[in-house]
């Protein structure tokens, strides 16, 4: 298994870099064209959220394996202000009121999502998609 790829997100160009690395990784793991696009879109949205809400942060992309199935894990880590109402960012009316596709959309693109956030400390979002 390859090492995790870490991309610092500071400008919009970094979003493109993260997307590219993510797409290559997804292809390498064996995801089909549609899933490659979905994974890339999820990475783009996560990176975009970093720029929008925390100004800077990083995206970590890694191949994972569990009980014989392969998958991809993407983490978005920032040291921004953090979120108050984590459960609400996954509701329809909340995400659509904000800019971007929102975390709910990201959740729909992948198999699972985990959000850790501390006010004043930052936010970590980790999503996983398995090769079906």
């Amino acid at each position: 298994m390859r090492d995790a790829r870490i991309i610092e997100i500071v400008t919009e160009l970094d979003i493109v870099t993260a997307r590219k690395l993510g797409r290559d990784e997804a292809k390498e793991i064996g995801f089909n064209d549609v899933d490659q696009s979905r994974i890339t879109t999820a990475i783009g949205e996560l990176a975009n959220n970093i720029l929008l809400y925390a100004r800077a942060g990083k995206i970590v992309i890694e191949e994972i394996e569990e009980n014989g199935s392969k998958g991809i894990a993407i983490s978005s880590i920032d040291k921004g202000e953090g979120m108050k109402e984590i459960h609400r960012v996954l509701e329809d009316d909340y995400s659509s009121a904000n800019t971007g596709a929102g975390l709910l959309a990201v959740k729909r693109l992948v198999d699972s999502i985990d959000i850790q956030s501390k006010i004043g400390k930052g936010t970590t979002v980790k999503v996983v998609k398995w090769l079906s």
Partner: protein
Amino acid sequence: MEQIRKQYKKILSDYIGNQSESDLYIGQNFIKRMIQKNVTPEEVISIHKRALEEIYDDIPESVLHGYDFLIEVMVHFGLKVQEHQALLAKQEELRIEMEIATKIQNLLLENEIPSPSCVDIGMISVPLRKMNGDYVHFMHDDERYLSVAVTDVVGKGVPAALCMSMVKYGLDTLEYANSNPSYVLEVLNRIIEKSIDDSMFVSLCYIRYNLQTNVLTWSSAGHEPSLYYEEKSQSFHDLESKGLLLGILPEAKYTQQDIELNSGDFVIIMTDGVTDFRNREEIDSRQIIKELALANRHLTAQEMCEVIYSELQKLHDFKLEDDFTVVIIKK
């Protein structure tokens, strides 16, 4: 998915072979099945691309890249579709909740129209949406008094319905049909002023009818004036009152007045949903109601209510804009 791919490829290649309308028709029916199976737009394009690749082995790379581009951009379209489906599910949830709430409201506000021997009473109350912001409360003590409260909460739907339950319990605590109308309004006003949101107001017309003397005593809190038809003079009078809406000032005072009903007289109590014709100022709705009532005064009070409802509904092109309630007391 593999099954879908195969069928799609078959339909597509049939169409490319002879471009017949029937293959297009089959294709449309097939996509309906794909939608049912939650196949997203970007997946459809991917299936299409792969089918083309399998049918032809000489598709230029550039065309295939074009498809890759389309798949990529359609991912967001697919997300919108999913969002739409989630909202539909949510809406269904709300609809079921609303239905239960409506049933509960109907149980709470259930009230039978009394039928004393000396007067004829009719009532119709139709909510605009599922839940009613109008409410009619009857009380009847067999010997002497009959009273009726016609209530309209400013606002519609669920908030109005919640507020209405409170008005109902306020009226229930007053228990006796013989209370003075002005007293009833003052008590209700205090309850409502204390307990509900500042943006909520209630209009109410309270009528007490003395079954032995035929004296009708009425008081009103900002309610649409009732119509009183006097057979002797063959004319209508407005039962006007300057009482403030309930829930505004804790110390509001209300006055009451008497009229005596004689044979052929009747009183029409209604909510503003009956008289309000928004954007159509040329319509004098009170005049129309008078004419309808006059032309149909040979009918029972209940039949008169139903005629007024059906005629006004027609005037509104069957699109009423508010809860609609009419009560008629007829001597």
